[in-house]
């Protein structure tokens, strides 16, 4: 973080440079990029351990690995976001020190980040020229527009450059990001998990275009992914990382799917989820009836969603991020007021008050726990008590909080959920991300769960933690609870859910049982109805 803060020139960009300039010189060939022995440590953790990588001009290269394998760290070191502890970068055979993204840009390297770096209130055109090194002091929009038109004639995507980015769909934003890199003359384009926000069809289209452009020798494409399908279908070469080390790679056509899987996850085995031991209960535990809600901008995000979840089953909600899932979860969690519709639990209206949450046994695992479910400055013990600080034995006489009781409760939960903290009094902000997640898990799953809403519960966790959380969720279901699992990870849904529904533009557009689930049909509904 501090590296990012300090980077860059202080203030406004310097005078225009003689080199290139915006408008996209699509003719120039991409450079040959080599990374040798890159090492990066974060504290005690070696995120990257002497990893080497070669990006041949005009190839489509995949960097494959599980969450936490070091893929993002590798390219961020290459791009000058992180300062590597050791390692060299050679561009066309010359060693280069890249200490800042601008250096990387000057060498023709560009990156599309997982969280888009477009400015939402600006138009596509404004976003495109923003990154230009020679952005003139006064922008003559007629000239820019002429160049954009010339540029658009040579590129494979059609985008309305005059619309504010906030009105574009996720797929269009992804395209615009890629266009921006092309427009700014970048020859090596790195995409960080590009398909997590795309439907399978959109992903195929974008990756297909990238592959064509690499075939034509116009650029080198690099994708960071954990999806084997994308590697096998599009990449020419692959580098596989595991726990910060390069564990294999080479031309994709010489590697089998099984070999790649073995390299990627090694000896670790994904445990099978426990099969349901409790049968699905006949009466629905959680019912949504015509639920409608707006997003922060006041636009309707959830449109008339009706759904029933029975005790003893997991219903998975699939969908590309940004189709109303967040707002739906927020409504269920009590963070957002619905515009209309009803939520019923065990047949009765559910007003999302504390008393009802407690009586009905409703618990929520939200994504980004630090943002949604915890207080950084409060202790682990306090964070663990959010659900029951006002109940005996934590509260005496109903209003006096006993700190001693909170600590006792915390010690037990820390033990049971293996939270690594210096003690119950440690401020939550001193814990690692995984342990924050465990803290929330301990709080939400240690009660009497009748209804559980879980949203991307395993995002960003390593394979062991993922397996543990998934088996705990399955365990809650097996104990008879109704589970609504909202996930952007189709594999997760296919593994856990008994039924899958697809959410698109705020509506539920498709439903299938797990037994009949077909990846392509689901993908089709994720893209349109």
């Amino acid at each position, binding site marked *: 973080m501090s590296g990012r803060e300090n980077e860059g020139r202080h203030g406004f960009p310097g005078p225009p440079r003689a080199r290139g300039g915006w408008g996209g010189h699509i003719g120039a060939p991409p450079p040959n990029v080599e990374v040798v022995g890159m090492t990066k440590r974060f504290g005690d953790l070696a995120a990257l351990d002497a990893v080497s990588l070669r990006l041949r001009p005009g190839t489509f290269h995949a960097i494959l690995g599980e969450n936490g394998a070091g893929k993002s760290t590798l390219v961020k070191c290459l791009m000058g976001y992180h300062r590597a502890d050791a390692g060299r970068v050679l561009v066309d055979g010359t060693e280069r020190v890249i200490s800042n993204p601008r250096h990387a840009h000057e060498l023709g390297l560009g990156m599309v980040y997982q969280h888009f770096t477009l400015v939402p209130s600006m138009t596509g055109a404004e976003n495109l020229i923003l990154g230009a090194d020679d952005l003139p002091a006064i922008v003559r929009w007629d000239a820019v527009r002429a160049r954009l038109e010339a540029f658009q004639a040579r590129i494979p995507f059609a985008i309305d450059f005059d619309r504010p980015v906030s009105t574009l769909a996720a797929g269009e934003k992804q395209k615009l990001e890629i266009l921006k890199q092309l427009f700014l003359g970048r020859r090596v384009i790195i995409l960080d998990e590009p398909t997590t926000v795309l439907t399978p069809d959109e992903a195929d289209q974008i990756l297909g275009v990238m592959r064509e452009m690499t075939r034509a020798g116009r650029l080198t494409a690099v994708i960071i992914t954990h999806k084997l399908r994308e590697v096998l279908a599009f990449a020419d070469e692959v580098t596989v990382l595991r726990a910060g080390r390069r564990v294999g790679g080479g031309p994709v056509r010489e590697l089998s799917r099984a070999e790649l899987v073995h390299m990627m996850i090694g000896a670790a085995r994904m445990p099978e989820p426990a099969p349901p031991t409790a049968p699905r209960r006949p009466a629905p535990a959680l019912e949504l009836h015509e639920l409608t809600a707006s997003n922060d901008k006041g636009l309707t995000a959830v449109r008339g969603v009706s759904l029933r979840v029975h005790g003893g089953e997991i219903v998975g909600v699939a969908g590309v991020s940004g189709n109303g899932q967040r707002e739906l979860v927020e409504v269920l*969690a*009590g*963070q957002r007021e619905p515009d209309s519709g009803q939520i019923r639990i065990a047949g009765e209206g559910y007003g*999302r*008050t*504390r*008393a*009802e*949450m*407690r009586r009905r046994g409703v618990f*929520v695992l*939200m994504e980004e726990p630090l*943002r*949604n*479910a*915890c*207080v*950084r*400055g*409060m*202790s682990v013990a*306090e964070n663990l*008590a*959010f*659900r029951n*600080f*006002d109940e005996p034995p934590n*509260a005496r006489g*109903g*209003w*006096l*909080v006993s700190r001693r009781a909170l600590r006792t409760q915390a010690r037990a939960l820390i033990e049971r959920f293996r939270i*690594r*903290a*210096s*003690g119950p*009094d*440690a401020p939550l*902000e*001193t*814990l690692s991300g995984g342990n924050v997640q465990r803290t929330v898990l301990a709080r939400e799953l240690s009660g009497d769960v009748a209804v559980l809403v879980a949203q991307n519960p395993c995002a960003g966790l390593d394979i062991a933690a993922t397996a543990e959380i998934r088996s705990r969720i399955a365990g809650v279901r097996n104990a008879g609870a109704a589970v609504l699992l909202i996930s952007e990870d189709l594999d997760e849904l296919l593994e856990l859910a008994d039924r899958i529904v697809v959410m698109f533009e705020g509506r539920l557009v498709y439903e299938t049982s797990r037994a009949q689930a077909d990846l392509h049909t689901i993908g089709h509904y994720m893209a349109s109805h």
Partner: protein
Amino acid sequence: MRIGAWAETAAISAAALLSSLALFGVFVALRGLDPLEVYATLFHGAFGTRFSLEHTLTQSAPLMLTALCTALPARAGLLVIGGEGALVIGGVMTVLVGVSLAGAPAPLAIAAMCAAGALGGGLWVGAAGALRHWRGVNETISTLLLNYIAIAVMNHLVTGPIRDFAQVLKPASWPIGPAFMIGEMPGTSIHWGLAFGVAACLGTWVLMRHTTFGFAVDILGGNARAARMAGLPIGVLILVTSILGGAAAGLAGAIEIIAVHGFASASLAVGYGYTGILVAFLARQNPLAVIVVAILLGGISASGGLLQRRFGLPDAATLVLQGLLFVAVLAANTLAGRFRIFRPRTA
């Protein structure tokens, strides 16, 4: 851990105090004065003699109460700076009740006046809290505006509807009469307001530290999304903290009337509300620390007159020192959590 957190807060606040005193020293040195002599006088004027100490404690009483007006809502995540307005409205309400109860038994009237002052201030700031929760209106800006509106309302009343034409020097309201004035604490020249202030701070501390209400408010202040997820009654928490905070400042207004002035006039709005904000921030919103910090800043205010007489410094010199201190405190906030020695070792 608790001790570590206290030590850290104290160390950071002390660092801010020292650096702002140093800056202030530069200021007075530019006037050709010896900073050390000014510091010595400052200390002497605040705590040097029994008289100055009593003056300091008297000054600190309204500061404790107005500080709570910022500190209490701040625990719920609100940045309220409406202490000045709540104090003024509280004072006006006190006079209205006091005048209309003329002839009633004094203890009853005094209780009624205090209640009226607290109620006026509480509703004044509570309105900002309600607007924040139910209308999304930024409470910082709305409370600042309410300060100006409160002063305008008071000016309107004391120049017209409740003007006492016997007072010719400046517009003032009818007096509540000497029978309704509370005196000084036995054996001192400090009025009873100090006891009110200390009691309010202690009460707030118990409320925030030991009750389920305080725990819920801390969750809300730490992360409103988490509080909603826990099903806490956000609106009630915001409303109650802002009403209690406003009530504290309104009580300060009541005390200014029943212990100091006896009538409402422009001298109600002399900046206690604004200094109270500084007290709250310097105390890092902790009600116990408010007591100490209020005495410290009461001392600075109290010694203003002495600085003026001894060195010819304008009375605004204390405002400058307070402003420097405020900036220093906020800048020092960046140090919070940076010192390893105050943190428990992580496993």
